[in-house]
């Protein structure tokens, strides 16, 4: 604990206006409504407690907005125009609070009122956080005309990223999210995920699992601050001795490229590794044609319609499947139905919208 170096925390906040609107709806729609304003005040308390843990701790806050991503605050380059200081508050806290709140308001106002919301810039925010961590973990050297803080001169011991997400997965962002997960692994960055609203996100679940972070799907949304402080405030090394909630079961299933359904047995193109839920004669990604012989063989070896269904349900029961229960109908059907390709796209779409399949 006498380590002179501080921990670095990058927080990625999902600021999707639509999702926050849905999240703030009153009881019939939500059991525990959570508007953005009350979320922000709880987030600020969490950020302040991170800074209070240790003087050397550093902080960066990124916002993911529709179609773009911005840095809201970073402790290495604080805001240029300092506000009038309140004599009743601790200046660093005040600085974080005002910067984050004003920048968030600015960015949300700048969004305007488009008819259709662009996809969320979550990937951009995550890669920015990674670039920022890469920058501060590098030895100081060449930043001209800039004061070297303590944080800059020493290597961060445990950088981590906390993603506070309210949006469902976006199928198109699968590859970039995977790439950022792998680079986080290389940088030894832990990614923690807190899903505040909406369905479970498979991508972020995998992100937390692969980088050794924790994934929490918020149940009592009125207790957000408690969740944040209990599970995300301690750095990963301390979490080993605390009992932080862990994921019980991780889905390594993939989404097929053709209908975006989640499959457990898929057909993979040997050239580009595109995944399909049924044998196809031509790969849609790289236009490779597959030999007829293989197609016939694969079609013959596919499980008969009802077999998979029964094995799934019977053997599935001993395994704690509570989390992924809603997915199972969508999962079993595409593989089990052999000829009913007519229904498949419809199923796929519905499962995509509810379940945000990968």
């Amino acid at each position, binding site marked *: 604990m006498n380590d002179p170096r501080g921990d670095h925390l990058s927080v990625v906040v999902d600021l999707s206006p639509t999702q926050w609107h849905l999240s703030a709806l009153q009881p019939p729609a939500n059991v525990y409504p959570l508007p953005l304003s009350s979320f922000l005040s709880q987030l600020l308390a969490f950020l302040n407690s991170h800074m209070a843990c240790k003087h050397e701790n550093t902080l960066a806050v990124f916002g993911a907005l529709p179609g773009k991503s911005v840095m809201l605050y970073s402790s290495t380059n604080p805001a240029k125009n300092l506000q009038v200081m309140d004599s009743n508050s601790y200046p660093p806290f005040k600085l974080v609070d005002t910067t984050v709140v004003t920048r968030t308001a600015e960015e949300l106002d700048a969004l305007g009122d488009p008819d259709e919301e662009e996809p969320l810039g979550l990937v951009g925010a995550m*890669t920015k956080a990674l670039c920022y961590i*890469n920058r501060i973990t590098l030895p100081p050297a060449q930043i001209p005309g800039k004061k070297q803080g303590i944080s800059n001169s020493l290597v961060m011991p445990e950088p981590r990223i906390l993603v506070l997400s309210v949006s469902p997965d976006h199928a198109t962002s699968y590859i970039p999210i995977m790439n950022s997960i792998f680079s986080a692994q290389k940088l030894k960055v832990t990614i923690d995920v807190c899903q505040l609203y909406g369905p479970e996100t498979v991508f972020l679940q995998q992100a937390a699992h692969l980088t050794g972070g924790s994934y929490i799907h918020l149940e009592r949304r009125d207790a957000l601050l408690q969740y944040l402080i209990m599970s995300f405030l301690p750095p990963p090394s301390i979490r080993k001795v605390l009992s932080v909630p862990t994921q019980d079961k991780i889905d390594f299933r993939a989404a097929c490229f053709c209908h975006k359904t989640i499959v457990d047995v898929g057909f*993979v193109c040997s050239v580009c590794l595109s995944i399909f839920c049924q044998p196809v004669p031509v790969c849609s990604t790289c236009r490779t044609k597959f030999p007829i012989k293989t197609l016939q063989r694969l079609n013959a070896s596919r499980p008969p319609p009802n077999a998979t269904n029964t*094995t799934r349900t019977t053997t599935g029961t001993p395994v704690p499947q509570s989390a992924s229960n809603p997915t199972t109908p969508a999962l079993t059907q595409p593989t089990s139905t052999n000829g009913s390709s007519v229904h498949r796209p419809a199923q796929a779409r519905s499962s995509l919208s509810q379940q945000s399949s990968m």
Partner: protein
Amino acid sequence: MPPRRDAEYMDVDSDSDISLPDDDYDGSRAKGKGRSKTGERKSEKGKGKAKDNQAYTWEASYARSWDTVQEDEAGSLQTSVEELLARGRRRRLLAPAAAVRRTIIRHLILLLDLSSSMMDRDMRPTRFDLMLQYAREFIVEWFDQNPLGQIGIVGMRAGLGEKIGHMSGNPQDVLKAISERHKLEPVGEPSLQNAIEMAKSTMSHLPTHSSREILVVFGSLTTCDPGNIHDTLDTCVKNKIRISVVALAAEMKICREMCDKTGGQFGVAMNEGHFKDLLFELVPPPAQRASRAAGAGATNPAADLMMMGFPTRLPDASPQSFCVCHNELKSEGYLCPRCQAKICDIPTDCDICGLMIVSSPHLARSYHHLFPVKPYEIVAASEALSERATECHACSRPFPLTPAASATEGMSPVGRYRCPECHNEFCSECDVFIHDVVHCCPGCGK
């Protein structure tokens, strides 16, 4: 051309010098051969030039690693660091930006020379120790980039080919095979033919859509073969086995021929660093050359559709059960989606139903080879700076306000690099980081 202290060498063709680390050995022979080589030779030559101040290993009386870094007028090392960055960038820009078909599922046999010539000390501590050390790093890096690949290890010792490690997709198994140094003690003469025959037979059963590669690390200048090695070579060509050779001593005609005929890469290591470079050049999946393939028309015989299973990972707290691979009671593991067998580690083939089991992150790890980030354009000093962003789009580092006085080729004088898709500007460090590690542009998110 690298500096030569010896006057009598000046007349030797510069091309052939580079792959000639053993001075008194074959000076005249290489001189004649050097002229016919082009292609790869050029790149080797470029490398030699880049490491300008470095003498050859056998010429250096002691290591002068500090000579490669030059201080600038202000006494700082920044310019040297930037030059290194620029070199990396230039190499990346040379790479084809268009989509290249690459082999994703690779099978590699690492042929290690364990003959007595590996005990030479021209590479410190010995060629043998250095080879083992680099081989370990190579294996780790290789599996990182080719998660669906498999590596087997064959040694060349006492005139025989010796199987050291079976073909395996688990890096730990492969590393374990070469972990015990005393079991690999070099002795006797190497036999290329025996070893290649052995490697060939271990790969004969592999499906056609996967690549078959042999990487030879060869320290000897001789090979003692029982038969005609050219016959072996011909069967390798027929079986589409790609042979690459990293020689530690000098260029041998048969090695060069093997690489040329099978489409592999050949290189002679000049020193320790170059040895590592040559080895690590073979880590990224090789591009498939359409012209060389037998039926290079509309159908590619190498392509195939594979059936794969994506398992579910069981938590640590689940009830214990036996795994099919070790017959041990375990609580964690993966369930085969087809037969529900419990498997300890993936990727693997299910022991019960034979289904290939991978996790989707394993597949995704290869996607960046297929969808690379476009190289960023260099922003020239002449472009107006006034209405541009003042800080890097990714890490918010402020850009320098005044253009640097001396900018080397491939570097932006204003320290800005622009994405051709989203037109955001990035600093040089983020540029390198994005292209080497993240593989995803923070501006456009692809």
